[in-house]
């Protein structure tokens, strides 16, 4: 016995060396294991799943939706559209008609067959003006959906969309497919008793406490999912959420760069793993160019040139936040050689403001949170250094959107979220006449570029369009970008298989424990 142990000890290094030598040859190195359960610590309480009731999902709801439901399309590791409930797709030459072939033999968790009629019913229910769904806003560009045969659906779009499939991959209230039987029979109770085709079935849900999801034994993707059970818990306090991960009550938690101490602590901890994904989009600000002093381009340029993003990142996120010089970000396929970003140049900024002649005084909207105030104060300091006086106007998060809509601001924060294609947000934010063209700025050249980019399929040509667009916006300084969107999750090192955190959604539905 002891001889055997001693022998094993002596031989162990040899085995290890051999193992390391072999691993690169036999891909994949990671073996998925079935069984076990995990607890996910989320930031927010989930209000429900019926789009008619809740309108849109937040990222916490999308994490749950990713497990309960499926989308037609998913994104692969490179961010490209890949099949899920849809197997293949084609488009018309003008990108306004998209035809999807659906997977056959899939059933919802209540036994209802998944087919083209179900997809159409989901769409029609959200689109129907009588239902007054807030979710309808985001499918306004889709005119209608038709079921051509049992397993073929056609989307007719009002506006061309060259990346339509990739845009349908987010686990949003628009994209996940609900069982039509379930919402018809459950009525008002459906929102808290959702039924999809996904890998997990909702077992129980205590408001404000926990949602228990159990493995769907009849899932169409054989061999998946791996975990037997996923428990989702809202843990609203960032400190105790992290403590729950350390003490083992949670296996993976949502985090963000405003919690840099814990993220950096986790990066050094071998028992923990930090999952970070820098997507497309950015944290941005819009000037109202119709109100003085922002009706003068010199003032706008001066303020942008005064912002030292690196220092700002250090001050607010301990250096985690990645500076942004355009609205596309590392995760976007749009890569610009020259995005026309204004340089950091306080001296030039001072000169521009002196050239303007009048005193520069204005208000900036910030959220009435410690985070919002800190960001505001940092900007205030940069601008004070170049001779501009900024006053902070603290409002709560919910009033920022309406203030933007009514153009009741001089300078407001905004956000360009991580989407697989820049068109929906860039067109809405910058095309003349759009309700969220916050800067109140109109430029035929910009409009032309935006219109051209949305009907062009060639990636190189589109990239050039979007780079020209950001050069123009940067030069005119109607909006500016501070930091890229980086999403974080921290998990135990044993949790494997987490995909990129596209759109801020921590999708644990295909993970396993090692």
């Amino acid at each position, binding site marked *: 016995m002891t001889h055997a142990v001693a022998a094993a000890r002596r031989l162990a290094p040899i085995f290890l060396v051999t193992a390391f030598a072999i691993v690169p040859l036999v891909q994949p190195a990671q073996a998925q294991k079935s069984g076990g359960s995990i607890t996910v*610590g989320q930031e927010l*309480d989930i*209000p*429900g799943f019926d789009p008619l*009731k*809740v*309108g*849109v999902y937040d990222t916490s709801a999308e994490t749950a939706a990713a497990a309960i439901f499926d989308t037609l399309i998913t994104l692969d590791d490179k961010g490209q559209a890949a099949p899920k409930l849809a197997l293949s797709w084609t488009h018309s030459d003008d990108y306004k008609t998209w035809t999807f072939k659906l997977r056959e033999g899939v059933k919802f968790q209540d036994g209802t067959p998944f087919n083209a009629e179900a997809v159409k019913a989901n769409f029609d229910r959200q689109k129907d003006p009588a239902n007054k769904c*807030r979710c309808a*806003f985001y499918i306004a560009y889709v005119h209608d959906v038709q079921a051509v045969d049992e397993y073929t659906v056609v989307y007719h779009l009002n506006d061309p969309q060259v990346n339509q499939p990739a845009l349908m991959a987010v686990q949003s209230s628009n994209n996940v497919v609900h069982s039509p039987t379930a919402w018809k029979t459950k009525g*008002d109770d459906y*929102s*808290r008793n959702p039924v999809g085709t996904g890998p997990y079935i909702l077992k129980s849900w*205590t*408001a*404000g*406490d*926990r949602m228990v999801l159990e493995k769907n034994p009849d899932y169409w993707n054989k061999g998946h999912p791996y975990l037997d059970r996923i428990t989702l*818990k*809202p*843990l*609203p*306090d960032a*400190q*105790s*959420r992290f*403590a*729950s991960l*350390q*003490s*083992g*009550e*949670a296996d993976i938690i949502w985090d963000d760069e405003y919690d840099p101490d814990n993220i950096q602590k986790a990066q050094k901890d071998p028992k923990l793993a930090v999952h970070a994904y820098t997507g497309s989009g950015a944290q941005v600000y819009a000037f109202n160019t119709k109100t003085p002093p922002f009706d003068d381009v010199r003032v706008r340029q001066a303020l942008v040139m005064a912002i030292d993003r690196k220092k700002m990142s250090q001050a607010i996120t301990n250096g985690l936040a990645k500076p942004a010089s355009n609205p596309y970000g590392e995760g976007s396929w749009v890569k610009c050689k020259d995005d026309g970003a204004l340089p950091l140049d306080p001296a030039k900024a001072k000169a521009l403001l002196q050239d303007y002649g009048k005193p520069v005084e204005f208000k900036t909207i910030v959220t009435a949170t410690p985070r919002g105030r800190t960001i505001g104060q940092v900007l205030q300091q940069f601008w004070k250094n170049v001779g501009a006086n900024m006053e902070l106007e603290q*409002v*709560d*998060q*919910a*009033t920022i*959107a*309406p203030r933007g*809509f009514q153009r009741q601001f001089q300078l407001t924060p905004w956000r360009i979220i991580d989407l697989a294609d820049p068109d929906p947000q860039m067109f809405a934010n910058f095309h003349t006449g759009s*309700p*969220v063209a916050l800067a109140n700025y109109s430029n035929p050249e910009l409009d032309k570029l935006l219109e051209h980019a949305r009907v062009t399929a060639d990636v190189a040509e589109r990239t050039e369009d979007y780079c020209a667009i950001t050069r123009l916006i940067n030069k005119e300084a109607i909006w500016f970008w501070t930091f890229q969107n980086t999403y974080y999750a921290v998990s135990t090192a044993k949790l494997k298989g987490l995909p990129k955190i596209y759109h801020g959604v921590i999708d644990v539905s295909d993970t396993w424990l090692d």
Partner: protein
Amino acid sequence: MLAFVIRRLVHLLPVLAAVSLLTFLIASLLPGDLAYVILGDQATPEKVAALRHDMGLDQPLWWRYLSWLGHVLQGDLGRSFRTGQTVLQAVAERVPVSIELMLLAEFLGLLIGVPLAIACAARAGGPFDRFMTGGAFAMLSVPSFLSAILLIYLFAVELHWLPATGYVPFTEDPVANLRFFVLPALTLALAEWPGIMRVLRSDMIATLQEDYIALAKAKGLKPSRILFVHALKPSSLTLVTVTGINIGRLIGGTLIVESIFALPGLGRLLVGAIYTRDLIILQGVVLLVASGFVIVNFIVDMLYAVLDPRIRHGHA
């Protein structure tokens, strides 16, 4: 006694009316139009006007108050626009958690505070008394969000004795339920016991100077019997008041503590409603909580009468 109870009940009515009016005004006068909040990033003027009309927001304030009050009196406190749940459903789901938390916190507070107070009063001015009085001051000035995090790090992260966050219903697993409640209740109790101790201590010191205590001592009764039987009850009148008022403070404390420990109670519901501008839940919950507070204090008034017969006869 009955006349006394009825008199006090009648006094409650204007208080409750004022509570309802204040609650309504606070929720209505918050900046930001509810219609804009609900519509979010698609608040076009036409949609806003239509929704305001649907929700009756275009009516004058007094009319909205009266119609809300009318519904409230019929037991209809409204429905969350986010979840579709009624206020009563939401409160019913969460109130047991908060009540358990408050009772445990109050119990722990008394458990720490009362023995310390008696010990201090028994040797008033002694080294233990002086140390504890200073210690109570120090504890009183530690905010609960700080003690919560410190307790979590010590007992959950370092020692692994207790869970950091979470909740299990008592009916499902009583032991696990109590384990989840220890740290949050202790957090609240740490802020409760100093007040309890100081109030009871000074009352007891006063009582211990009374002639009847001297008589009891002269009769040769055991000191412990004098302290616990003869001195404690007459000294606890202020303590009962403090305990009643503490309920109000505890309700405030649950807002923070329930968020930190992720307990699904009223405090969390309220914080969530504030963040998401769920004004219907907000005003409904505040109304119910404020009414509950008023009623608890009514019960405290009644307890006085039990503890001190002079009060129920209107002599004190």
